[in-house]
Structure formats: C-alpha cells, structure tokens
C-alpha cells in the first residue's frame, strides 16, 4: 500500500549509510576469500583456490553442522512441543519456575554450561567423543526457544477452545493432541524450529568446549581456520557458511509461511 506521507531524504540517506556500515564487513570478508592475495587486494586477481582448500580441509564440518542442527530441530519438536503443552496446561505455580529455569542456559555463558556437561558426563567416553555430546549441548541451549514459542501458542484462548471442542466431540488426549493441537500450533512449531536451526548452526560458545578434533562443527572449524590458516581461507570459509546456511534458512522460512497460510487463523 502506498502511503501519502512524504519520506524524508535525510532519513533515507541515514538508512542507506547504516545499512552499508553493517553490510560492508560481510562483503569484504566474502570477496577477500576470492582474492589471490588479501593484502594486495583485488589487483592480485581472483581465484577459487581458497574455497577448494576449505572444502578439502573442513568439508565434513558442513555436513556435521547441518546434521546436528536437524537432529536438534527433531529433538526440540519431540521434547519441546510436548514439554510446552505440559507447561501450558499446568495449573501449578512451579511450572512458571520451571519455564524460567529452562531459559537459564541462554543467560548463563555457554562455556559454563559446557563445563557443567563435561564435569557430569565427561567420563562417559563413548558419549564424550561422539557428536551426541555436542547435540546435547545444542539442545540445552535451544530448548527454551522452542518451548516458549510453542507454549505461548498453546496458551492462546483460541487453542484452548479448540481442544475443549474436540474433547466434547469425544476425542481422547492423543487424538486431541495430534489431530487438533499440533496442526493449530504448527505455525509456532515451525517458527520455533527455524529459530532452533539457526541458533544451532551458528552456535560456537558451547560447541567450542564440547567438541573433539573428530566432532567439529562449522563455527568451530571457522575459528580453527582463522587461528591457524591464511586469512583468505578464513574468508572463503565465511563464504561457504553463507552459501550453505542462506538457502536453508530461506527454504525453512518459505515452509513456515506456507504453513501459516494453511493453518493460521
């Protein structure tokens, strides 16, 4: 819709400047991954060499990260959605406390959470050395995002009425939950999943403590390349990150908006 309010050119200029200020580092980082020599700039010529190096050195971190993020989403859907329902329907005051407690890992530095996990389960070697250990860390960190989003949806008066309506029509709990509540909360579940996926893909704090040389994720590999390789390789790595993550995010966003159209009220 077109507005009749005249736009101020000063504000427009300001917006452009701020946007450029934010976008420039990302663009620079990407382009320097394509340059032959970063210090000489684009005059040194362009190459795909660094990208190939990244893929051969760190290619496995891409699949590991995506796999962990997807597992994290699945785990969140299983534990988070059911947990959200329990919290939303609980009449106990303890449930409010519990929900606050659940959010704690977001506020507490990831390093502390990771240290606690290592202290508690570090001795279980099989577990400690597997990707499951990293996954558990990601789950702890992302669960509140799913639970809070979905619980808020379950608490809506509309959904309570839908659940009651299906109960009056003879539906038991399992039928109510799967045939009515989950479809009605689907937009919230999908937007929670999107958030969880995004957080898991980019998670560094916890993962840096929890990983082993054999269980590295994309951001950990990125830190490693920055620390130990040429800056061009680090930049090329950033580019790989963008190439991998952006289409996935767009795809999930598209699915979420599609579901919102179908199930939104």
């Amino acid at each position, binding site marked *: 819709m077109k507005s009749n309010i005249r736009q101020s050119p000063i504000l427009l200029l300001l917006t452009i400047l701020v946007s450029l200020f934010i976008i420039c580092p990302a663009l620079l980082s990407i382009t320097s991954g394509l340059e032959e020599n970063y210090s000489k700039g684009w005059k040194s010529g362009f190459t795909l060499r660094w990208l190939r190096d990244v893929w051969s050195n760190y290619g496995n971190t891409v699949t590991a990260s995506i796999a962990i993020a997807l597992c994290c989403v699945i785990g969140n859907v299983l534990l988070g959605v059911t947990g959200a329902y329990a919290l939303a329907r609980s009449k106990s005051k303890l449930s409010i406390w519990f929900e606050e407690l659940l959010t704690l890992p977001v506020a507490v530095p990831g390093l502390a959470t990771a240290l606690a996990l290592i202290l508690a389960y570090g001795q279980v070697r099989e577990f400690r050395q597997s990707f499951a250990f990293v996954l558990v860390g990601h789950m702890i960190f992302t669960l509140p995002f799913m639970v809070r989003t979905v619980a808020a949806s379950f608490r809506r008066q509309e959904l309570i009425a839908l659940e009651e309506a299906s109960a009056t*029509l003879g539906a038991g709990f399992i039928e109510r939950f799967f045939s009515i509540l989950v479809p009605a909360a689907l937009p919230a579940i999908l937007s929670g999943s999107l958030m969880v996926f995004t957080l898991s893909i980019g998670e560094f704090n916890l993962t840096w403590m929890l990983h082993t040389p054999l269980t590295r994720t994309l951001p950990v590999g990125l830190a490693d390349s920055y620390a130990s390789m040429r800056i061009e390789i680090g930049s090329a790595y950033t580019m790989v990150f963008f190439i991998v993550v952006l289409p996935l995010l767009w795809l999930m966003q598209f699915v979420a908006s599609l579901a919102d159209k179908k199930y939104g009220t």
Partner: protein
Amino acid sequence: MELERTAVDIRQCEKTFLDGTKALQLTNLLIEPGEVVALLGPSGCGKTTLLRIIAGLEKSDGDGSVWFGSDNVTRLPVERRGIGMVFQHYALFPQMSVASNIGYGLKIRGVSEQEIKRTVGELVDLVRLNGLEHRKPKELSGGQRQRVALARAIAVRPKVLLLDEPLTALDAKLKESLRDELADLLRRLNITAIHVTHDQHEAMSIADRLVVMLAGKVVQVGTAEDLYRSPKHPFVASFLGRINTLKVIRDSRGQTGVCIGGTWIPCFASVNKDSEVMLRPEDISLSVVDSLDSPTKIAHRVFLGDRVHLRVHTEDAGDLLVDAARDCPFQTGESVKVHVAAEALMSFGDY
C-alpha cells in the same frame, strides 16, 4: 434426525476457583428430558461455570454431582459424557473443511466413511449449508460458522446439547433471524438443550424455561412469562425488560403506597415503609391534563417505530420510564397526567 431425550440433574454443585473467587454457589437444578433451558444472567453470574460443570470441562467442588438420566456422570471425563457443545466463538477446526468439521466426532468414534458421509449430508441439509461442504471455516460468514458449529455438535447424537453464548459473536440483525432459526431447530430435534446467554430476548425466544442467575446463585426459575409477570426478586424484574423503581411511603392513616404525579396508589401486598416497589413502563398510561402548570411533564421522547419510549418527569416519584403505543401524541415538554393500576405495582417480600 431422532435424538435421545435425557434429563439433566445438577445436585449440590458449587465451584470456587484457585484464586478464591466463588464462581458458583451451592446449586440444584433439574432439567426435564427434551427441555430447552436458558441460563440467563449478567457476565460473572456463574452461568458459564455451571454449563462447564455439566459438560465436564470443570469439576464441582465437594460432593456435587451431575446426572444424565439415571447415570451419574460426575466422574466421566468430557470426551465420554456424550454431550454436544457449541462454543461462543464456535471453535471450528481451522484446517478442516465444513464437512470434516461436522464429521469429526463420528470419525473419532470409528464410524464408517460411508455412514459419516450420509450423516454429514443430512446435517448439511438440516442447517442449510448446501454447497459449502468443502469450504474452510475462515471462508464462511459468522452465521454460517455458527451453523457449522451446531451441526458438528449434534452430529454425534449427544444426550445433551450445550450452547455457550451461541449468538453473541453475530451482529444484531443476523442474531434475530438466527435466534428464531435456532429455537425452531431445537424444537424439531426435540433434544435436551442448555443455553447460556446474557441476552434476555435471546433466552425468552429460545428457551422453554429460564434460569436467572446472579452472583453465582440461581435467583428464579420459570417460563419467560412467569418471570416477567411475577418476578420473585427485583433483579429478575429489572433484568427481564425495563423497570421503574419507586419508594414506598406511609400516608396519614398508616396505609402504605406510592405517590405518582400527585395520585396516591395503595400497595395491597404487605410491604414495609422504606422498601421499594417496581412498575413496568407499559403499565403506566398517560392522559391530557387540564391545567398547563402541572409539574408532570414529558422529559424525553424516543420514537421506535412500533413503540414510543418516554421519560416522564414527576415531582414526587422522580423520572419514570413509560412505554406507550406508536400513536402516543405527547411531545417533549408537554404536561400529562399519569395513571397506574394498583395491581401493576410489583412488590418483593423478603428475598
């Protein structure tokens, strides 16, 4: 569609919410098989709580019990009570078509695909939704949604049909036509129905019997006509229609009565001094007055088409609401004389 007719007996039910509010005082109520009853009262009077106790969506405190015929259903969860319920905002399943909404309860019960199709078809005819079977709820008008909700509730052949403010979400004009349609449909179905509303016209036109509630308590139960003509409680009188409240005085001979526009009207019923009597606006008639300086004057006049609503100012009884016929000639500012029959005064003993 032939439905079972079940009596509903509410025994010793009461409800206190977690925060300590007493939503429903100790209540007993018997609803006859096939009867349509309205729970009527202002918001917060406990009518919805009572309905939800009958449905099984709330539990009565203490020893309260709910009986459907000879079955004690108090401990049955809502999904096994065999009720049908229409919700205030209909609560139609948004992702399902009209047909799937109506057939949902049957599908849950494991009824065959063919049988569901037949029943849904029959109901679609009954509530006149033909051609809309494949629409989604959000593609329907308010009135159509209401009819889907009704069809969905009766599809499962409930023992009791519960209606929670079924017409509140509709606009005034539609409300009136759907009101009569609903009343007609309930009679044809011959089903026990309990209908919650705060709208007295809705209750009067749909229900056989009205249960008037106030502050968690049943105040009076009866037919609309009984309640209107002989209310046992001033609240019932004021809630069903408009009312004038007058102060009772005692004259020099010790007789009680009221003075309206200089005319003494005795109270026959035993009323105390300082108590109040009530008077319906249509029980006051007006006539031309000889002297122009009479203090009884028309203060306000609203022409409503079939009726004329007047506010008459009197010196002794304050402002009175008067309901006159269409052709009432008196205009604002004109002096009038007020006539009231002594029988028209409604008094309330100890309630």
